[in-house]
């Protein structure tokens, strides 16, 4: 069957999709977006986490046919997604995500050489949560990272100064075999603190 849906703000089509296939499989194997990881295929690890109509879900448990006409954000689009959200001044209007007009204007990341030097706000720049993961040393093998980034970004969108308990709860569906989680918690705290100082600087 054919499945048409929005991925990171862009309408995409996948053909010859088997009816029992997961969204994760379609993203990775049919659309060439291997950012979302496949570790357990049973909802246990969270490494396949994406946003489906804004809601964090395990893409391994969503049937491909269920996303017809819906909106998916993967880690590949996270930086863009976060930038657009910031430009609109956070979640104030209750409309987070990529609007239709913006979706139409969405441009893929330029090739590596083109982004060299494009430091401020351009495509290819990292989202605040991605930068915080790097700065806090929260990435080791990196297999869990895409899912954690998507989940952590959504937490900060809802709650810009989460308590440790909030962070633990929001990330409780994401397993990491390497870091022992402490640096991941540090990264989320760091991103939250940076977010606060940024809005403070704007007097918002």
């Amino acid at each position, binding site marked *: 069957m054919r499945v048409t849906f929005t991925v990171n703000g862009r309408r995409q089509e996948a053909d010859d999709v088997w009816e*029992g296939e997961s969204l994760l499989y379609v993203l990775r194997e049919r659309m060439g977006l291997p950012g979302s990881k496949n570790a357990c295929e049973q909802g246990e690890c969270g490494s396949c986490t994406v946003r489906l109509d804004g*809601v964090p879900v395990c893409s391994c448990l969503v049937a491909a046919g269920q996303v017809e006409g819906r909106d998916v954000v993967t880690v590949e689009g996270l930086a863009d997604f976060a930038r657009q959200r910031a430009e609109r001044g956070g979640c104030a209007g209750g409309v987070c995500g990529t609007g239709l007009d913006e979706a139409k204007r969405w441009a893929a990341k330029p090739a590596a050489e083109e982004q060299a030097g494009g430091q401020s706000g351009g495509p290819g720049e990292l989202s605040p949560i991605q930068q915080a993961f790097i700065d806090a040393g929260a990435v080791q093998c990196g297999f869990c990272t895409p899912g954690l980034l998507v*989940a952590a970004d959504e937490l900060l969108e809802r709650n810009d100064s989460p308590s440790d308990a909030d962070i633990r709860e929001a990330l409780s569906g994401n397993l990491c075999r390497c870091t022992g989680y402490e640096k991941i918690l540090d990264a989320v705290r760091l991103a939250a603190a940076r977010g606060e100082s940024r809005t403070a600087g704007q007097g918002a």
Partner: protein
Amino acid sequence: MDFLRPASWEEALAAKAEHPTAVPIAGGTDVMVEINFDHRRPEYLLDLNRIGDLDEWEVGERTVRLGASVPYTQIMENLRAELPGLALASHTVASPQIRNRGGVGGNLGTASPAGDAHPALLAAGCEVEVESLRGRRMIPIDDFYTGVKRNAMEPDELIRAVHLPKADGPQQFSKVGTRNAMVIAVCAFGIALHPGTRTVRTGIGSAAPTPVRARAAEEFLAAALEEGGFWESGQALPPSLAQQFAQLAAGACNPIDDVRGSAAYRRHAVGIMARRTLGWTWESYRGGAHGTKGGAQCA
């Protein structure tokens, strides 16, 4: 395999009538695991995500009509006052990602004894609204679970909603597992005090072939509370009473040994949870500081 995508409830009923073997899929948290692991190759998948009605709930004067696909996250966030037991149980379902997709319809359809919603549904006492082209019927929760992963539904029926009475007293839920998140219950216990009718209802998960009530324990407790005038006096319960309640609850179990726990452990743990949850709910009834509002409590 065929993927059926009804746009309305009526279309879904028609599809299910035409293809009774079609497997309904909503949150996908059970169905997709089976397909991913090749444990199941249904001829038809019947997607219920397009039927908006299933994601809605309605708070009436005495009952809550909870759409079959209302995600656990929504139950936790929006129905804590009306359905405290189910809200607590919802919070123990897997992880945020899973709670964002799964709803009670899935738990009921799968009817696994380990489904987290069952003890709370049994304790609250509710009716399951199922429908087919032949008509609609309400199945009392006490008649719903008929065997291991079996329920009272006909092949052409779909679950539309659950009708639960709004809580008229404190409710609690407790679950044993190796950690807080992502845990299939080793065993679980739900309790609801119903001061309006001076009754107590319970539900036990993962400790018998189906979710069950601890009826002997309920009857004993209701009689003891009545006789001792506890509902009026709001006095503390004597430990012997709680102990007897716990023993009877453990006696209602018919567990098996498996990788998650032994039968003996399950029986023991259900007794402990029965005693503790009774304590919490009773304290709350007496107006103590620890109520159902406090969320999960460590015991």
